[in-house]
């Protein structure tokens, strides 16, 4: 398919924007000026100011003489880039490939996009009328090459849509300024009397290169399509994207749900055909008042099941604020992974649909409460009790066995709690201990089990653990920190409860 590019030229980008924010300025001559070498130079101006003969680069003092009622505002460098970025995002509704073209233009790759609006003419008309409604005065053009579209948008008097293969003819009558050339080259061309591209388009490349530099030839060839020129999109398009244009702005929850379901069905159908599933997806909505928002979901396993993905979005659907109405939904699968046939076995190796269920359940939990709440443990190769269960991912299989040779308590305290304990003899279990003001007389005990601190990880004392059973049959896990020491107080702690 031959490429088609659109160039949009914002003739009065900065001043139009000022008039949008201050409607009373409309129709008045005003300019933006920035200080430069101790003078104020005009950087942007309105059509009205231009009528007086004011041009860019003129000093404000000169301009005030020829146009006494001229209003001057302080310009901010970089303001146009910010505006263009916003406008480029707005243009994403027409094509996913939009490039900024500073200082005052946008470039769109509209290949295969125009038929959606009913042809190139209708496409451009819609852009013009909608931007005009906002308040921007633009000149768009569509041509086979970026260079031709750029030149036609800025310099052609008419014929803004250049038919396929006609860009050479369209360029012929245009001035050299249509070729994106630097000012010194343009001056040279004018001095030589070359006022139209047609007057030098047939000159040999070597002649042009010698007289006007390499850049001149490159630009000419790019405009003619002899040299490839790439568009660098502002936003990398996501390969799996579905869009839903609403004929009428949508405000109700039911409508949003229907739209979401529709998008998901289309996306999942595509992904299913390619054996892929969603790991992370984003739903973006564009409101008619120009605001937008998005919700993101993630899954534990790649999934292309519509009901499941819908449920994940459903949990977060409360955050959608339709305001005056939503006109466009875009669903992007930002991260996809192949759906493996082995997906069914989670780790239990039991097979069946059960593990799919569990993965989807965990997705929902993570969507509502957060991923940090879900834990799974594998045997860690540590003796230190706090490190024995090692946090692990959901799908990882254990590499070693859980140890069962030593008894371990059913419940464990995050922080061992200090207790007062009395032991008769060194290395014997305590006779009694006091925890939270209650005295427990120990009638049976096992131990000690010495657990050395893993000195390569942290310094500290070892622990001598005892399993102690009190008169009521309650079983505790106690330890003494460090060696038995007659002089100092013993440091006894309660660490857990046995079943």
């Amino acid at each position, binding site marked *: 398919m031959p490429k088609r590019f659109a160039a949009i030229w914002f003739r009065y980008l900065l001043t139009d924007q000022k008039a949008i924010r201050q409607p009373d300025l409309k129709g008045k001559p005003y300019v933006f000026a920035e200080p430069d070498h101790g003078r104020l130079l005009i950087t942007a101006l309105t059509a009205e100011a231009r009528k007086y003969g004011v041009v860019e680069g003129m000093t404000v003092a000169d301009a005030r003489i020829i146009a006494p009622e001229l209003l001057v505002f302080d310009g901010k460098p970089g303001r146009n880039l910010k505006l263009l970025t916003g406008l480029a995002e707005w243009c994403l509704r027409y094509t996913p490939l939009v490039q900024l073209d500073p200082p005052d233009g946008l470039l769109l790759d509209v290949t295969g996009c125009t038929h959606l609006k009913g042809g190139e003419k209708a496409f451009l008309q819609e852009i013009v009328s909608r931007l005009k409604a906002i308040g921007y005065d633009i000149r768009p053009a569509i041509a086979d090459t970026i260079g031709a579209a750029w030149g036609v948008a800025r310099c052609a008097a008419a014929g803004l849509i250049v038919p396929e293969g006609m860009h050479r003819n369209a360029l012929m009558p245009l001035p050299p300024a249509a070729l994106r050339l630097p000012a010194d080259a343009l001056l040279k061309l004018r001095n030589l009397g070359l006022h139209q591209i047609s007057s030098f388009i047939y000159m040999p490349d070597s002649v042009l290169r010698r007289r006007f530099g390499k850049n001149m030839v490159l630009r000419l060839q790019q405009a003619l399509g002899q040299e490839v020129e790439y568009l660098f999109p502002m936003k990398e398009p996501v390969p799996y994207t579905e869009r839903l244009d609403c004929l009428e702005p949508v405000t109700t929850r039911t409508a949003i749900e229907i739209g979401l379901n529709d998008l998901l069905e289309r996306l999942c159908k595509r992904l299913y055909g390619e054996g892929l599933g969603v790991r992370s997806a984003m739903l973006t909505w564009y409101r008619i008042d120009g605001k937008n928002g998005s919700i993101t979901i993630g899954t534990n396993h790649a999934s292309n099941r519509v009901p499941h993905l819908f449920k994940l979005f459903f949990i977060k659907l409360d955050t959608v604020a339709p305001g005056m109405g939503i006109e466009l939904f875009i669903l992007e699968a930002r991260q996809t992974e192949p759906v493996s046939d082995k997906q069914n076995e*989670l*780790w*239990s190796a*039991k097979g*069946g*649909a*059960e*593990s799919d*269920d*569990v993965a*989807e*359940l965990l997705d929902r*939990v993570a969507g*509502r*409460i957060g991923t940090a*709440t*879900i*834990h*799974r*443990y*594998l*045997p860690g190769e540590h003796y230190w*009790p706090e490190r*024995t*269960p090692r946090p*692990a991912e*959901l799908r990882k299989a*254990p590499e070693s066995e*859980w*140890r*069962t040779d030593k*008894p*371990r*308590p*059913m*419940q*464990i*305290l*995050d922080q061992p709690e200090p207790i007062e304990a009395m032991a*008769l*003899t060194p290395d*014997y*279990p305590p*006779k009694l201990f006091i925890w939270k003001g209650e005295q427990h007389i120990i*009638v*049976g*005990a*096992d131990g000690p089990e010495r657990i050395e601190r893993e000195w390569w990880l942290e310094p500290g004392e070892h622990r001598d653990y005892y*399993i*102690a*059973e009190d008169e*009521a*049959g*309650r*079983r*505790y896990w106690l330890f003494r920190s460090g060696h038995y020491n007659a002089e100092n107080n013993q440091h006894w702690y309660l660490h*857990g*409860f*046995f*079943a």
Partner: protein
Amino acid sequence: MPQTKEEIISKLRQDMIRWEGFRPPQPGVHHDLGLGPVAAAFPGGVFPTGAIHEFISSSPEDTAASGGFIAGLVQKLLRNGGACLWISYTRRIYPPALKLFGVDPDRVIFVDVPLQKDVLWVTEEALKCEGVAAVICETKAFSFMESQRLQLAVEKSRVTGFILRKDVKKANTTACVTRWQIRPVRSQLRSGMPGVGYPRWQVELLKVRNGRPGNWTIEWKKQNFQPVILPQIAEPARQYA
């Protein structure tokens, strides 16, 4: 056609049990949870899976004992496949200990919910999920309405739920099939041996729908529940020093 009065009454009884959410055990699936004499307390003599069981505990020691008892039951439930979720707001369970009760700790997913109100939401979602074999939920507050919701969820999905309640003060009515209280009791070794024996619990079945509540002493021995016949001859107190 049942003709005699007894036959009609027993058939009606069975129907009523079915209407109340019990289902006859599916053939080909293990249903013996190794509870021994305790199983006789349940309708039909089978531990009701696919139902909600409530455990109350007032102290961390009781919670540990209940955890052990539940883990023993979960071990049997996991034989038929599926995952196990342990949902709590303040988790103290020590995963390696589950292995001592026959549950592979890596097959248990722990969901630590920071807010109490989300605990029951997660529990309900988990109970609706058919790939889950058992759900254990540690919670504080548990109202009648919430218990009804959970019961309705399991009646569809046949998941077994265990609610571990830590507020014994408000032992309100719930729609759960059973209510248990597990307390640790003195373990016993062969006479004269010092140390701590197998985990032993006083298992009280406070309520059971269509069954007979009871009270047993049970020991966890060799990966199985072993009923202890009481009374036994009291041993002399053990001596250490």
